[in-house]
């Protein structure tokens, strides 16, 4: 019996543990703290935090043979987890407000400006273009899109990008209001919008996800898997004939996948990939993308307000960033805070779901453009 070997095997836990790991466990604890005490996107930050702890206790995603590696290979490398989550998300979205006010869709486009602005900025700072694009896509403010794009362009940055995407999404009630107050006048925030939607038939609601899939898959084929799964979920919901499948998408599929996705993402956050200045750069630039999204959305809202001669409340520009449904609710609440009779929730939801669509399109186009450039 070789005792030195035995000793080595028994003390493996300690010998492989360093200060970096300890620090990363603290990062994991912080994420769990945010999830449990602050309830910031707990269904994702809690598994990410726990996965981060495991990655630094000898169970990282890139070590063949373990559960974390299995989850990563099965769900992230294949893109399956973010896509399955989108099936569930699609089954939870109601596009009627957008269909009733299709002009709202423009605000969704404006809310993606931060993605591209940060791409330029990060390139200027010196990030290679694939990494710069992956950082920019935090500005999609949409977890599955960010993970889908980053896992293709810069898998080495997946951990911080996912953390940034989900953290900032949950920080909306803290980040957006000051920007909204700064960018809009009280008079603008008091604008009431007439809610006189066009009636939307069941046929339109059922055809919508199919048509969107066709149109977007043709224009932005790189976004096709994302838009297709999102719209599949929505079709399951709106068809009204496959309640079993719609419920499976909204429960079994999304719950199990979210848990596994979070763990696998967290398990990429080893000390050697996360503890770099780069990571701080990612977090800072991601935040900037978020802010620029909001600013661009508000500016476009003001433009629409000007063009329509004050019929649009610019606040709904802020929820074109996506982050469904938090951003939509926040905008409506801001209007209500100024004037307790000013109800713009329907418009905000139209803009917000438009942002969801535009995020996917922008993410897909980014992927195609960067792949085309990198060839």
């Amino acid at each position: 019996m070789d005792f030195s070997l035995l000793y080595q095997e028994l003390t493996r836990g300690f010998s492989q543990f360093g200060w970096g790991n300890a620090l990363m466990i603290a990062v994991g604890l912080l994420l769990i703290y945010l999830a449990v005490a602050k309830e910031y996107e707990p269904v994702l930050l809690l598994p990410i935090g726990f996965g981060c702890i495991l990655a630094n206790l000898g169970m990282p995603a890139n070590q063949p043979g373990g559960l974390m590696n299995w989850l990563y290979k099965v769900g992230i490398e294949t893109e399956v987890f973010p896509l399955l989550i989108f099936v569930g998300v699609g089954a939870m979205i109601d596009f009627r407000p957008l269909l009733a006010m299709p002009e709202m869709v423009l605000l969704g486009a404006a809310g993606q400006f931060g993605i591209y602005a940060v791409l330029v900025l990060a390139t200027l700072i010196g990030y290679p273009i694939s990494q710069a694009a992956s950082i920019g896509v935090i500005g999609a403010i949409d977890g599955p899109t960010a993970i889908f794009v980053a896992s293709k362009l810069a898998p080495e940055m997946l951990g911080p990008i996912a953390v940034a995407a989900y953290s900032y999404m949950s920080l909306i009630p803290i980040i957006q209001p000051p920007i909204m107050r700064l960018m809009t006048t009280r008079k603008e925030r008091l604008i009431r919008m007439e809610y006189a939607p066009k009636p939307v038939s069941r046929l339109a609601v059922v055809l919508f996800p199919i048509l969107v899939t066709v149109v977007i898959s043709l224009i932005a084929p790189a976004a096709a898997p994302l838009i297709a799964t999102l719209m599949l979920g929505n079709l399951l919901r709106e068809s009204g004939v496959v309640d079993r499948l719609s419920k499976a998408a909204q429960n079994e599929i999304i719950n199990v996948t979210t848990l596994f996705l979070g763990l696998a993402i967290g398990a990429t956050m080893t000390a050697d990939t996360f503890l770099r200045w780069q990571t701080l750069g990612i977090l800072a630039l991601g935040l900037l993308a978020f802010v620029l999204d909001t600013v661009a959305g508000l500016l476009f809202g003001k433009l629409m307000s000007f063009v329509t001669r004050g019929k649009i409340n610019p606040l709904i520009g802020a929820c074109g960033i996506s982050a469904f449904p938090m951003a939509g609710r926040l905008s409506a609440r801001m209007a209500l805070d100024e004037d307790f009779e000013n109800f713009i929730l329907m418009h905000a939801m139209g803009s917000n779901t438009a942002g969801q669509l535009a995020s996917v399109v922008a993410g897909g186009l980014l992927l195609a453009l960067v792949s085309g450039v990198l060839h």
Partner: protein
Amino acid sequence: MQPIISALWITLIGMGLVFIAILLLWGMMALLVKLTPDKAEAESANQPELPAAQPSIPEADGLTQRKRRAAVAAVIAARILQSTPPASGMQAQPAPSPWQSSQRAASLTLAASATRKANRK
């Protein structure tokens, strides 16, 4: 070519295509809603509107049917806003869709004594 030039080109083409795609979606949606009239709406339009039974909502002050609906929708939307705190995307489902609430509200308006009903509930 320098990366920054590439990045600028990507930004230009990317934002441009996003807007083009979104404009296409706008057109598609507008067409879709136009070409698929809401049967329920059409039917309710044919229905007699029981004007005599609505003493509590004076038509005189210029409130159109649509505006009245919007008012009721707003009341219900407000309740939704107050009851549901900003929550994670995954908790979006359980809450009734604001749209559905507003449509329900619209039906209420049609069914004569809308405001009283909304108050009682």
